[in-house]
């Protein structure tokens, strides 16, 4: 018996029946908790929970291209960084922060489009390596042009909220609510998108490219679209992350970040949009929880990553969905 099956037994099916029976009540409780959290938890944890929403958004940059379109993209960290750095650069140039976020998002989308144009001609491991190289080039670029990017010292980012507002409500609470809303918006948007003809076309391309072409799906166009969308969502997340975090430096956007982002997607479930919240929770909170064993924290993290891939390949979202549908 696998460990996964043991886990399954632990969660009694009756539990799910109970949940189903009281859907609305439970939904209301979850919403209430989400709304009240800023008044219930210390600010360090509030920061982490806000970060969960950012990772929840970022997870879609793995769900869409990897889970649906079958494209191995490994440049999410860089896209995230492009969004974050352009936010800072644009506000430095005098743009109001809110506008800067939108422009940064579009700009990241354009960067992704320009990279995707040649890159999506490749597939499989080739695409993986091209995008991984782009990620490394981006981090290198940040380090090599310190006059523009702050180099390894980094850059500080201005706040999104004017001091009038933060005077009334603490900044971290504002960020929490903002990102909660943006995250919900993202989930709804992607849920619709992935359950539309678009998501279905991507799945067809992934499962059977020949069939896709034969029923008139322009696979190349869809691959580029999915690649660009990954850029857009990372750009938006980056544009929001910069003011929230207040500070940017190159290692924040390296391959480890990319892997964390994809891990958020995998842990949540690459084909279950709703799972992204669990993915976010895992990549943010597990390292926090393991902080007490400082030295071997990363070793355990690596082991957990492997176990997750072995025993929960559909992610937490996929596992829940399976239970739900029973």
């Amino acid at each position, binding site marked *: 018996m696998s460990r996964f099956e043991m886990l399954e037994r632990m969660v009694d099916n009756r539990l799910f029946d109970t949940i189903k029976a009281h859907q609305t009540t439970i939904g209301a409780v979850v919403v209430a908790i989400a709304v009240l959290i800023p008044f219930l938890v210390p600010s360090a944890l509030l920061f982490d929970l806000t970060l969960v929403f950012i990772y929840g958004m970022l997870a879609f940059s793995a769900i869409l291209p*990897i889970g649906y379109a079958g494209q*191995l993209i490994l440049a999410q960290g860089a896209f995230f960084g492009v969004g974050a750095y352009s936010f800072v650069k644009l506000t430095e140039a005098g743009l109001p922060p809110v506008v800067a976020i939108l422009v940064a998002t579009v700009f990241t989308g354009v960067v992704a489009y320009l990279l995707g144009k*040649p*890159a999506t*001609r*490749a597939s*499989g*491991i*080739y695409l*993986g*390596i*091209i995008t*991984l*190289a*782009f990620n*490394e*080039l981006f981090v*290198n*670029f940040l*380090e*090599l042009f310190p006059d523009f990017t702050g180099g390894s010292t980094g850059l500080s980012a201005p706040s999104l909220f004017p001091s009038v507002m933060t005077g009334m409500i603490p900044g971290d609470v504002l960020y929490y609510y903002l990102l909660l809303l943006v995250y919900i918006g993202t989930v709804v948007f992607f849920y619709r998108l992935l359950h539309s003809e678009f998501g279905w076309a991507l799945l067809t391309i992934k499962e059977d490219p020949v069939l896709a072409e034969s029923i008139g799906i322009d696979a190349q166009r869809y691959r580029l679209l999915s690649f660009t969308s990954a850029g857009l969502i990372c750009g938006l997340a980056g544009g929001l992350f910069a003011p929230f975090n207040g500070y940017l430096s190159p290692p924040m956007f390296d391959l480890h970040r990319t*892997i964390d982002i*994809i*891990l958020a997607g*995998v842990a949540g479930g*690459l084909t279950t949009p709703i799972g992204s919240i669990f993915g976010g929770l895992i990549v943010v909170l597990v390292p926090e929880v393991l902080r007490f064993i400082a*030295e*071997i924290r*990363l*070793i355990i*993290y*690596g*082991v957990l*990553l*492997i176990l997750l*891939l*072995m025993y929960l*390949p559909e992610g937490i979202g996929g596992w829940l969905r399976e239970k739900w549908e029973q």
Partner: protein
Amino acid sequence: MVVSIEQLVFIVGNGLIFGSILALVAVGLSLIFGVLDVPNFAQGEFASVTGFVIVGLVGLGIGLVPSIIAGIVFAFVAGVAVERLVISKFYGRDEFLLLTFFATFGITIISENVLRQMFGGFRQIPGPDIGSIVVAGTSVNLLRPAAGAIAVGMLIGLYIFTRYTYMGLAMRAVADDRRGAEMIGVNYERIYMLTFGIGAVLTGISGVLYGMLFTLSPTSGVALTAFAFTIVVVGGVGSFFGTILASLLIGLVDSFTATMVGSRWRFFAIFAVLFIVLVLRPEGLRGGST
């Protein structure tokens, strides 16, 4: 920018030596990818782990040669263990490529941090003193060309192994058509295991050479993995000669950049090469041929 003859000899010499050491990592990666379809992100770890095992053993007062032998045996065991304990759990799964890519990334995280715990920072394997010669006015430690020669020797050995022994042929056969190999009596699971072991040994040897000529750190493995992936992709997946050619090219580009532009630009230059090659030829330099 003017390059003197001395500099040129230095750049080309270093580039070829580094390139042939890289080729051992890349060939190991390529072998494993070819036979098992695993994009092994932990490939470079076989080099750093082997190197550090030898550093540790030498530190305990054990002689260099026995330490090296023990290190290489360790590499083989580590390769087989990775295949048995991790990779084999994913056989027959959907998304095999993706799952094994991330699983081997997990192995990298583990290995890197174990090395950090056990050895801390930079270490070097004390190479044997085999004298030096003077080339174009500069004194060159003979260990450097010797390391290059060993790497080349290993590559030739591998070539012969895959052309003229049943085990080597079986590896190529499994890579080519697993079903076909099964039907003519090849136990492919055993070949998977051996391939991982042999791939790890090749890369482990590169770790020995690397550790003698340069310095090992817990992150050397990841750096070598990045180099190796670049090489395999530039050379064309599955092409032995493409891989060697790309290794030497990357070695030369690296050596040139480090000497003439500054070592901060090394990765930039290499990834730029990768980028250009792939945009021009999405299947690599020798894509499609073997």
